[in-house]
């Protein structure tokens, strides 16, 4: 399944809502998160891709590929080049460390989001379960 496509997000939403571990880890989380995957034409990603997950108390109330307007209205925005997101969803780059090091750029209250270490890790674990194909090769 191609990374950051509607079907990829749909699979992620299903996995989130089926995960007891995520539900427990994110029990206090409130707020939708937008993901901006920045274009890298030389990696097969010619345009920016926006996605949104509406996360609330351990559940995902909806999500998918979004337009920029919807993405910018989210409580939090995480953005990085495509290659860096690939590192995150393949477990190569710790998302919380990446936020603290500026590798994932955060708009929204940074301390609030970085306190959610377990929830972030559970989300990454869930993305690892999706058989993901990448634009610049599997």
């Amino acid at each position, binding site marked *: 399944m191609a990374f950051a496509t509607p079907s990829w997000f749909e699979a992620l939403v299903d996995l989130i809502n089926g995960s007891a571990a995520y539900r427990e880890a994110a029990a206090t989380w409130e707020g939708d998160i937008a993901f901006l995957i920045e274009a890298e034409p030389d990696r097969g990603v010619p345009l920016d891709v926006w996605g949104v997950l509406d996360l609330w108390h351990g559940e995902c109330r909806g999500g998918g590929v979004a337009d920029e307007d919807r993405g910018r209205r989210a409580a939090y925005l995480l953005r990085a*080049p495509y290659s860096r997101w690939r590192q995150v969803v393949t477990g190569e780059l710790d998302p919380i460390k990446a936020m603290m090091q*500026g590798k994932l750029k955060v708009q929204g209250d940074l301390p609030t989001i970085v306190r959610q270490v377990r929830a972030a890790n559970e989300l990454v674990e869930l993305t690892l379960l999706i058989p993901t194909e990448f634009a610049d090769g599997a």
Partner: protein
Amino acid sequence: MRAAVFDRVGRVRVDELPDPTVEEPGDAVIRVTRSAICGSDLHFLHGKAPISSGEPMGHEAVGVVEATGPDVRRFGRGDRVVVAFDIVCGRCWFCTRGQTQLCEDFRNLGAGVFGGGLPGAQAERLRVPVADVNLLGIPDDVGDEAALFVGDVLSTGWYAASIARIAQGDTVAILGMGPVGYCAVQAALAMESAPGRVLALDREPARLALAAGAGAVPIDVTTSHPVTAVAEASGGRGADVVIEAVGSPDAFETASDVVRRGGTVVIVGMYAGETVQMQLGVWWARAIDLRFSGVCPVHTVWEAAMEALRAERVDPLPLISHRLPLADVARGYELFDRREATKVILLP
């Protein structure tokens, strides 16, 4: 004499103005042999900086001294000189400490009321106040067109590279291959503590080709993401030093994105009213050394820049894309504004 003057937003014209004369004891009057259009002239052309119709334009010039006031000691009639784009007193607390860009009496040539009402350099003749401070002699083996760059963009690029504290083997990323960025590439490569590599980032193929010709590794940001490209060129860390030579919030953000933790960012691009959002905690945690160059204190670096030019360690001449008579200055501005020219030289 003829001089380029501001006409209206988006337009300059050539007017006949009175010949300048020595007005103060420290003045020199020079006959301009070459002048040029600078990126910062476009701020006036676009109406971003205040200037009135009929006010002279330009601040880059070389020429020959024709007359001097009684206090001028270092120059005499017939001397070939380059003019500092910023005119300073040379005596105040800041000037005596080498921070001439912070001079208590700081003025700019050809910048209207913003620059203290001084005349412009895009003219046949020019009055230069405090000539002993604001002129530099041109060595016999340096041509006028090369020396012209010492009065502004070459010294500005040199200054940016010199305050970046480049260490041996560093990866240096320079954002924006306009004239200052190009000169910063050359300056970085000419530093005694030579960097391992200089990465040149821009979106214009012609500018990238110029930078590659000067020894930089070109990165076209329309096809490669700057973060990924710089990371791959630096072992995944990011650049040790970033020089931002654009002057836009996007470029500022890119500079912070491509520098490594503990690295140095030098902002030499010009800013006015722009604002940015910064995660201060991230900057703090990343221990980034952020340095705003401000206007270049050209007087403190231009001798080094001239010596580098004379020794052929730098060569700004490839930047010149057009040579036009002063009468065609309006066309020169149009070409430069449309980014169809990298540097326009004006021949009086």
